[in-house]
């Protein structure tokens, strides 16, 4: 039935730095695999729909899509609980979904509506879900790494026995503050996992052009690291489970997830000038995280091809419905301009562009 234990080998072995890697054999269940399939398909579909909405000018500004990288979010969530914390950069839509956010909240945010997860005030780069310990959504490359270490500091301070996953890209991996934060986290044994989503490009820059040493799992020097196939959701799950146990006892660790983004960096980047179409289609054919799970499900005969197609259809409908709903939701009330500047506005006056025309007492 649904809960039968299956043991499946990861695509490739883990490679460890200063640590013995976990086993390649991962336990799962039919139910889990089908959930993976559904959830990753939903993410994929959401991102593709965001692309269309952007082109239709319903989303503006920067918009960074996650399709291709879904296994990282989903595998990570399968290994941890919502009491554990996650923080990431601007490529945050799917991380939000993985943390329990809804499609409606996501689309409404992207369209700047008050039903959005940040009431339309954050936009694509600034999704949050504090109730499940998702701390955003940050636009400054690398800044989320010390922030994540700080959340882990809080977890340790409060003796919560939980951990923080702080996600960053291969480009961000060269930021100095990462090394500062890592040193302190190691000195203080903070329960933090630095998840480097190595999608091999930072904007248009290939990893080897941005880093003398693109072996990101080793870049922590004295901090242990693990290289993981980030396109294999079971490998991600295994690695995150292993890492969570490790950091609770021993302090920080780096997980380098070998992954790939199908879309360009953001909506203004076709994503095809600095890499070949062959490279992209090669990854799609050989390493796609959803197709890998589809094959597993079919080869273990846990479901039929047409049942999986039905799931995909259903996913498509979920997404379409959410978009339709989001479109109906109103823009934020103009008074929201002046809310949330502070938690405690102290009754002070704040000004609009023309201070004699528009001002408000801060709540």
């Amino acid at each position, binding site marked *: 039935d649904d809960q039968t234990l299956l043991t499946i080998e990861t695509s490739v072995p883990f490679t460890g730095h200063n640590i013995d890697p976990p086993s390649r054999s991962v336990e799962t269940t039919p139910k889990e695999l089908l959930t993976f399939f559904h959830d990753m398909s939903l993410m994929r579909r959401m991102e593709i729909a965001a692309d269309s909405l952007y082109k239709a000018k319903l989303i*503006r*500004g*920067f918009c960074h899509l996650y399709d291709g990288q879904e296994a990282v979010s989903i595998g990570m969530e399968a290994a941890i609980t919502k009491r554990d914390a996650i923080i990431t950069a601007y490529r945050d839509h799917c991380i939000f979904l993985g943390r329990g956010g809804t499609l409606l909240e996501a689309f409404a*945010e992207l369209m*700047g*509506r*008050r039903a959005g997860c*940040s009431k*339309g*005030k*954050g*936009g*694509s*780069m*600034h999704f949050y879900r504090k109730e499940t310990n998702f701390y955003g959504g*940050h*636009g*400054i*490359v*690398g800044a989320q790494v010390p922030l994540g270490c700080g959340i882990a500091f809080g977890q340790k301070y409060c003796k919560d026995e939980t951990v923080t996953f702080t996600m960053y890209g291969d*480009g*961000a991996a*060269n*930021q*100095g503050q990462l090394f500062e934060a890592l040193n302190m986290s190691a000195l203080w044994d903070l329960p933090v996992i630095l998840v480097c989503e190595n999608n091999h490009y*930072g*904007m*248009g*820059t*290939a990893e080897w*052009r*941005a880093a003398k040493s693109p072996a990101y799992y080793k870049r922590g020097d004295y901090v242990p690291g693990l290289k993981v196939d980030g396109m294999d959701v079971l490998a991600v799950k295994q690695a995150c489970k292993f890492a969570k146990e490790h950091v609770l006892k021993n302090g920080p660790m780096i997980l380098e997830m070998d992954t790939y983004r199908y879309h*360009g*960096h*953001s909506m*203004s*980047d*076709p994503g095809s*000038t*600095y890499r070949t179409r062959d490279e992209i289609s090669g990854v799609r054919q050989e390493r796609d995280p959803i197709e890998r799970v589809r094959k597993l499900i079919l080869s273990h005969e846990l479901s039929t091809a047409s049942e999986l197609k039905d799931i995909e259809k259903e996913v498509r409908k979920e997404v379409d419905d959410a978009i339709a709903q989001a479109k109906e939701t109103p*823009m*934020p009330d*103009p*008074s*929201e*301009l*002046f809310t949330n*500047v502070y938690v405690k506005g102290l009754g002070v006056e*704040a*000004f*609009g*562009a*023309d*201070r*004699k*025309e*528009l*001002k*408000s*007492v801060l709540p």
Partner: protein
Amino acid sequence: MTVRDALNTALDEEMSADPKVFLMGEEVGEYQGAYKISKGLLDKYGPERVIDTPITEASCEINQIEAGFTGIGVGAAYYGLRPIVEFMTFNFSMQAIDHIINSAAKSNYMSAGQISVPIVFRGPNGAAAGVGAQHSQCYAAWYASCPGLKVLSPYSSEDARGLLKAAIRDPDPVVFLENEILYGESFAVSPEVLDSSFSIPIGKAKIERGGKDVTITAFSKMVGYSLQAAEILAKDGISAEVINLRSIRPLDRATINASVRKTNRLVTVEEGFPQHGVGAEICASVVEESFEYLDAPVERIAGADVPMPYAPNLERLAVPQVEDIVRAAKRACYRLVPKSAAA
């Protein structure tokens, strides 16, 4: 000529004139999303002088490590080169601001003139569209508060060419604040502007439109808005003089004060946060030097005093609009009584 081309040709000509000039920064060569200010320069000057574009294995890109690459740029300037450091946007310059202030602005003074720092820091500044709170800040007031720096902000293609050329030739550190939304805008330019010897003196404002009833000061994109406002005001019989500041530091106090002594009324316009902003300084300067000429309170138009919201309706409320300028000018001319509205 677009502002983009104006900047591009200015870079090109100055690189061709002086082999010590080189570009480094976050403008990404192969990447289509970039603003393309340095287009064509790599082919022409090679990877030794356009150090952002991956062509050979020896070159690399230097995104998102602002502290490091800015420090390297400043060090190269200590050595006597003339680096042009590009920030993808000035928001990211905060990670490097210690080098801009402590390593660049103060060195000539601390060394009593031994270590000059001929460097330009450039890139888009301030609000773009729909990019939210972390990507929309205006740094004009911060940088221009610091002795040792010169701070320029072009509006038109003439400004962009003339000021960038002046900045590159200047022996001091210059912060050069562009505006993403203006890159694609076209401005007519005279043949003189196209001459490779063209440059605009640093520290001088330009009267973009003469007028006698009210002075409007602005820089960057807000100059265009102010000109539009002046157009509208003219229809109402108000003759507005629009001053394009061009240089925020040194600030052209003389031109501003002379204008106010003529019009007796002042509206300051900027997109940045109001407190301790450029408008506040201009107001103080006019009060200090031309108090007895002022016939009405100085009117200040600025970005709303909130982080930049994403939703388009809120965003629109958060930055000055033409009608805000018109309204303020009318108030200054006592054609309107101030309303006490609440949002």
